[in-house]
């Protein structure tokens, strides 16, 4: 359990609906994400979990409803603007820059923290170089933190899946996000890799105070690391509470076990 839960609301999703043609991927979902907490989003396949993440990160725009980040309406922002606000994410099917080295991948994640004139950059002169070095130092800290020193020069595309997920997390962390969105960070990992990843997520939350929203299928993991759990089913929110509340919630049991109440 992380310590910092219970502070103000960082992100507010207000009765958001997303429609793809005739399909309602999300209908009237409201979620509050509190600063400093780890919030898990669970639900059966097709429940709208990734859609919710895509709406928050600006890849989709809601057909109805609004989204507030730090109190400001940012419903219609595009992904790069969302990143600029301090929201970083990872993808369900690892989206690394496969041809680039691990180090370059993570440096690219730091892009928004680096400013400079195009011309100086092009010539790699003066401030451009010192800035490059300062940011490089920060990236090295992340590399140490996630214990990927050994692979820093390796091309990202050649790494085993579990490590790719870790590099993707590193790239997201490089932006020093306020809010970190993780789409199934442990999918396809073995038990040991999952334990490592859990430890990293808890450490990121604990040491940097980063608020984390994650989608996860492994119930054991969800119950272990999250402060709060939101359950989606068929695009609707059916439960929202502490892991213990949610575990015993009748609607959740229905959704997962397929029992119907008349």
């Amino acid at each position, binding site marked *: 359990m992380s310590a910092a839960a219970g502070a103000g609301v960082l992100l507010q999703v207000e009765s958001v609906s997303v429609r793809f043609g005739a399909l309602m991927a999300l209908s009237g979902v409201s979620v509050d994400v509190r600063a400093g907490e780890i919030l898990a989003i669970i639900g059966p396949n097709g429940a709208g979990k990734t859609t919710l993440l895509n709406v928050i990160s600006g890849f989709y725009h809601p057909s109805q409803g609004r989204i507030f980040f730090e109190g400001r309406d940012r419903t219609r922002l595009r992904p790069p603007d969302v990143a600029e606000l301090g929201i*970083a994410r990872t993808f369900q099917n690892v989206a690394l*820059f*496969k*041809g*680039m080295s691990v180090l*370059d991948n993570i440096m690219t994640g730091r892009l928004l923290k680096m400013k400079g004139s*195009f011309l100086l950059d092009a010539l790699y002169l003066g401030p451009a170089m010192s800035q*490059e070095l300062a940011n490089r130092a920060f990236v090295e800290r992340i590399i140490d933190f996630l214990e990927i020193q050994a692979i820093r020069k390796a091309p990202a595309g050649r790494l085993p899946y579990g490590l790719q997920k870790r590099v993707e997390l590193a790239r997201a962390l490089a932006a020093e996000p306020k809010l970190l969105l993780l789409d199934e960070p442990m999918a396809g990992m073995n038990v040991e890799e999952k334990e490592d990843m859990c430890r990293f997520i808890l450490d990121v939350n604990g040491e940097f105070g980063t608020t984390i929203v994650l989608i996860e299928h492994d119930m054991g993991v969800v119950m272990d690391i999250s402060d709060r759990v939101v359950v989606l089913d068929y695009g609707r929110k059916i439960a929202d509470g502490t892991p213990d509340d949610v575990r015993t919630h009748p609607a959740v049991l229905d959704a997962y076990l397929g029992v119907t109440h008349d």
Partner: protein
Amino acid sequence: MIDVLQHVVVGPFRDIGSNPAFFGEVVIGGILAGMLYSLVALGFVLIFKASGVFNFAQGVMVLFAALTLVGLLERGLPVAAAFVVTAAVMIALAFVIERVVLRPLVNQEHIILFMATIGLNFFLEGFGEMLWGANVKKLDVGIPDRSFMMAGMQVNQLELSAGVIAAVIVAILAVFFQKTRIGRALRAVADDHEAALSIGIPLKTIWVVVWSVAGLVAIVAGVMWGAKSGVQFSLSLIALKALPVLILGGFESVAGAILGGLIIGVGEKIGEVYWGPLVGGAIENWFAYVLALAFLLVRPQGLFGEKIIERV
């Protein structure tokens, strides 16, 4: 039979050995011509890497840049001012292309974007003609087209300057791509659009940047070529020479474009001078394409291209 072998295999090499200074001249001429092929190919590679678009209009961009520069010089602008204005025009063109052509077609099939660049090709050709007229123009940028002796070899001053400038530009671009913030952003966009968006890289800006850089490279290529053989509409055909260079070097590799250009430049000059007389000349015209064909058979991804291995 022996006689033919003698002519093809032994004779040319004997010629090379008997006059090494002349051979040096041929190689230098080839390297300098190759640098220009590299520059044109580089324009293709930049755009292809960042947006996956094969820009059919690159050759016409070279022509358009040269036409604009000559047109401005003819109207009495000093050389430096003409260069600045031409650069501004090419950058403005990049903005317009992003807004009018690329943005509405985002996420479309590659073939559709390719067709759009063919349209762009014809538009620019007509637009350039409308603005500046269709007659052949002489371009004089102040570097004399003279030769001087260096280590016993004749070297053309204009070609040498062209080669040196091309080399400098290529070096700058290489550092830019590998070491800088924007260079990394460009490579990131080329690799994965969604991931690039998610870390805050605005695609639109990147496209404007690559098309601008491709436009600036086109100016240099256009000026070099135009100074040598006049600015005329056949200039857009040098883009065709860039195709074998790309096949040789790999479509996504800056280093490949450079090396490919040099190999073809030197190869066709040597072929022309030493083997040309045996077949009545004109080797220079087809050497590049035959070499590219051979590469397609043996190493289709090019020298530095990424080999695509599909998992089954």
